[in-house]
């Protein structure tokens, strides 16, 4: 069973939930990032995701380690899909279990923020009149002078 995975097929949310279920857990949170039809008023026809697969899986596992060091007893599973995705399809699913709910929410949100910082995955938006590779990071920070921020404070 792989807790951190890049896949090309549709993601099964239930499988991720099963990966983190345990008798000690009282709370399981999931996050499903889906392909939205409109971004900044522009209509997306579909998305194309590309990854540096082996490194992306390593970085997902690193996020998992960061989480278990911050939230004791949390268990995390993350699957990111690549390839062509239609509107409404899930690009990423994150499942976190924890004995307490607060940690399950916090750790889950931490995971998606970190994915957007350090995991080598790229998204191309295809519109009716063009297409573009998106660099979310670029809008906020440039990391041309060093490592991406490795820890969120």
């Amino acid at each position, binding site marked *: 069973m792989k807790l951190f995975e890049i896949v090309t097929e549709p993601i099964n949310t239930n499988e991720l939930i099963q990966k983190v279920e345990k008798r000690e857990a009282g709370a399981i949170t999931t996050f499903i990032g889906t392909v939205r039809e409109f971004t900044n008023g522009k209509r997306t026809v579909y998305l194309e995701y*590309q990854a*540096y697969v082996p*490194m992306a899986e390593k970085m997902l596992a690193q996020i998992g380690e960061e989480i278990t060091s911050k939230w004791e007893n949390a268990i995390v599973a993350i699957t990111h899909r690549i390839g062509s995705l239609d509107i409404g399809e899930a*690009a990423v699913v994150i499942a976190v279990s924890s004995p307490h709910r607060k940690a399950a929410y916090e750790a889950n949100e931490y995971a*998606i923020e970190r994915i957007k910082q350090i995991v*080598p995955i790229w998204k191309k938006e295809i519109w009716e009149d063009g297409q573009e*590779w998106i660099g979310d990071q670029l809008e906020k920070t440039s990391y041309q002078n060093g490592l*991406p921020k490795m820890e969120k404070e």
Partner: protein
Amino acid sequence: MITVLLFAQLQEQLQKDKLPLEMDRVSVRELKEYLKEEFGLVRVTEAMVAINEAYALEDDEIKSGDIVAIIPPVSGG
């Protein structure tokens, strides 16, 4: 020899996902400069570099046999 992996807009620009470079020792900074000048990859300046699947700093050294990935700003999730 150093293998350079390209992704996203850089891959599309060169129509290649891989560049084998006859180099022995080069810093990350020097490699980025080289890719910009030789291949016109101007956006390499805003990219991170990973050596053998780990993020590297500008002064880190790349050796023959290394797999070097040019990582433009990521947009997963």
